[in-house]
């Protein structure tokens, strides 16, 4: 279907169905039943099998008309896409709709204290007892876990298999006694993550996803969507139409809850957008050394934006497969954030000694200075990205692996 056709069809449908006077729940039912909640999903699940580019057109029309879409932000999209790819019909039936409607929120339970870069080294223990899997272990870096209804979880179900083959993937009900969530404070003062302690937590056998021992393959699907930004917060665009009506308040609240862990993410990226105005206001535009570093920064940022636009275009036109060039963009984001930190420091001079609401830009600059270190760690460290680029893009040979053989014999902390 052409872009123009889609526009016509969506507009017509919204003209007929959209009303900001409905409750969010009501509207989402209409939306899902109407087939416009996730237009890139296959047709048997509410929807249309659109390409991502076509789906973007749909989203654009929603945006233009001020219509609220499906619940999308946060880890729930990683869950829904993974269930869609690997789930049984029963799982899809039970889980997908409440995700789109916003009824269920989800979290991701992959990382552990002992397996950070090495996700496949997870050692949370999963043991089958009858119709139930019993889980014991600790997860960490779990965004939104404190209000999540469910979690996608990677655990080791077989210790005698090699590392990647002894994992299974579970859909965990977070509302149970064996699951304890504790907030984790970062160096910038935010508490965006949690630790999750599992003590005989239970997962019904039917909520194993993708089959026993197949956890790594399923997790790879999740990770590919994560790399492609499916858990990213929606950008805070200024709405193009006036928004009034009860539904917006509900929607804003949903967004706010989901986005709360991400409020410092723009600072993590370095706030390049603030550099020029800050330099002018602080008189740093008169300092040639600062100008040099600004130019470096703007060049990198422009290059990264252009390169990611090109990659995005490629993705939209194409499939859902991992594009290894994504690692180049991820690595570039780290370089840019570090350079932005450096430039903001130069611009601020001794004002960089301060933090809090009375410091520059209402504390935003200070938050940049203590947040950029996260970007080169979260979602795959710079080191991992460099490995991917070297091995998968440049085709350089892999080194020796120390983690072969039965998992129980592999050295670990």
């Amino acid at each position, binding site marked *: 279907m052409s872009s123009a056709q889609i526009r016509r069809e969506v507009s017509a449908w919204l003209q007929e169905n959209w009303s900001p006077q409905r409750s969010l729940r009501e509207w989402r039912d209409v939306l899902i039943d109407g087939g416009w909640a996730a237009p890139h999903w296959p047709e048997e699940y509410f929807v249309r099998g659109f390409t991502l580019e076509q789906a973007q057109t749909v989203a654009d029309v929603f945006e233009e008309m001020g219509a609220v879409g499906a619940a999308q932000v946060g880890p729930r999209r990683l869950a829904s896409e993974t269930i869609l790819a690997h789930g049984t019909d029963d799982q899809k039936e039970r889980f997908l709709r409440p995700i789109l409607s916003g009824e269920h929120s989800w979290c991701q339970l992959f990382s552990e204290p002992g397996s950070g870069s090495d996700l496949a080294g997870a050692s949370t223990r999963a043991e089958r007892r009858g119709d139930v899997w019993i889980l014991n272990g600790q997860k960490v870096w779990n965004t939104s876990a404190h209000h999540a209804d469910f979690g996608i979880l990677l655990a080791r179900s077989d210790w005698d298999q090699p590392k990647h083959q002894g994992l299974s993937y579970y859909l965990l009900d977070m509302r149970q006694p064996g699951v304890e969530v504790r907030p984790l404070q970062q160096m910038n003062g935010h508490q965006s993550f949690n630790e999750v302690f599992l003590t005989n937590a239970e997962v019904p056998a039917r909520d194993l996803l993708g089959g026993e021992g197949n956890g790594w393959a399923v997790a790879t699907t999740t990770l590919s969507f994560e790399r492609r930004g499916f858990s990213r917060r929606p950008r805070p665009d200024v709405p193009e139409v006036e928004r009034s009506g009860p539904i917006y308040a509900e929607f804003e609240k949903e967004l706010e809850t989901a986005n709360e862990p991400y409020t410092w993410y723009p600072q993590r990226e370095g706030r390049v957008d603030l550099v*020029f105005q800050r330099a*002018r206001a602080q008189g740093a*535009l008169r300092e*040639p050394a600062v*100008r*040099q570093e*600004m*130019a*470096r920064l*703007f*060049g*990198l940022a*422009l*290059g*990264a934006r*252009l*390169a990611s*636009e*090109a*990659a995005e*275009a490629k993705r939209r036109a194409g499939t859902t497969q991992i594009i290894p*060039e994504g690692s*180049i963009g991820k*690595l*570039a984001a780290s*370089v840019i954030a570090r350079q932005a930190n450096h430039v903001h420091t130069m611009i601020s001079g001794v004002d960089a000694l301060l933090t809090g609401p009375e410091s520059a830009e209402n504390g935003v600059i200070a938050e940049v200075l203590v947040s950029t270190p996260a970007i080169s760690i979260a979602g795959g460290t710079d*080191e991992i*990205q*460099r*490995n991917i*680029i*070297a*091995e998968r*893009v*440049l*085709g*350089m*040979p*892999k*080194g020796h692996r120390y983690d072969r053989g039965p998992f129980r014999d592999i050295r670990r902390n």
Partner: protein
Amino acid sequence: MQSSFSQEQVLFREIVSNTLRELSPMDSVRGHLDSALGYDPEVWRRLTSESDLAGTHIPETLGGAGLGDVELGIVAEEMGRTLYTGPFFSSAAMAGTALIEAPEGPLRDETLGRIASGELLATLVTGDLADLSSIEGLRIDAAGALRGEAPLVVDAARADRWIVLAEDQGEAVLVAVDRGAEGVVETRRQSLDPTRRLGRLRFDGAVCAPVGPLDRTSLERLSDRLCVALAHEMIGGARQLLESTVEYTKQRVQFGRPIGSFQGLKHRCADLLMELELAAAVVHHAARVLDGAGGDAWTPSLAKAMASDVYIECAKAGIQLRGGIGFTWEDDTHLWYKRAKSSEVLFGAAHVHRERAIQRMEAAQ
């Protein structure tokens, strides 16, 4: 991770790339380094008369292909890849672009036509090769003759006609001086980069033919366009170097393993590829901006600065990762290294362009 080129542009690149690889492989480049001309005239003939490359961005009405800065960039990039040493850059890019920026007129149009066909070789002569928008050093005297010195002229000795940027009563003008004109002293200079020939020209009241004035906008545009063309040449060279270096690390075995399996080398190559992709994205974007796609006036300078930095980094890595062999004359790597060094300073070094980019941003605010 290429930026978005049109189908035609992708095809154009493929043709240019294949042509250059076929006509001007590395042994041909090396074979002519010490020859009188410094390039193979037969290859140049075929590149011009068969492939029409010299007219890439020259208007169709004058016999060119009428393409834009994107296509000029594609040619320059592929020539940077293959380290082509012929007079394309001096004649088509430098003199050609200067003439394109000048007002239409018989001398301009005739010269452009003959540059496009390859029958005439020209080059751009300026008093300061570090800043193409400067008109210091060369001036038109009261009698209309040319005076002053151009200490560095690319391909001075190859040109049949020198297209000279000079000052005439405070204004910038373009004039043409034909080889053989009186009052011209030409000296060959020894170039650090054996793939880029240099000369000095002194004009002591030389007879010159006026081409036309260049206003401030045209002058800056000329500088921008040549910086962007050169930046393309540079990212082409950088990509070739990175690819050949990575390939070397896959073949070379030390300590019982290909050295490309050492993580230290992997990470260095990964960083270089990232830097190259960002630079290439900006360089390609700069050409689109010049071609009228619109965009920011600071992109040409950012492009030149980023291309400089990444080229020299790839060149250093190219030698380093080859070890001792990379430092020998016999190996080709040093030729790219020297091209990277000469490109680094030509039309202004990276720090000069970074400063200029910020000036443009200030002006735009």
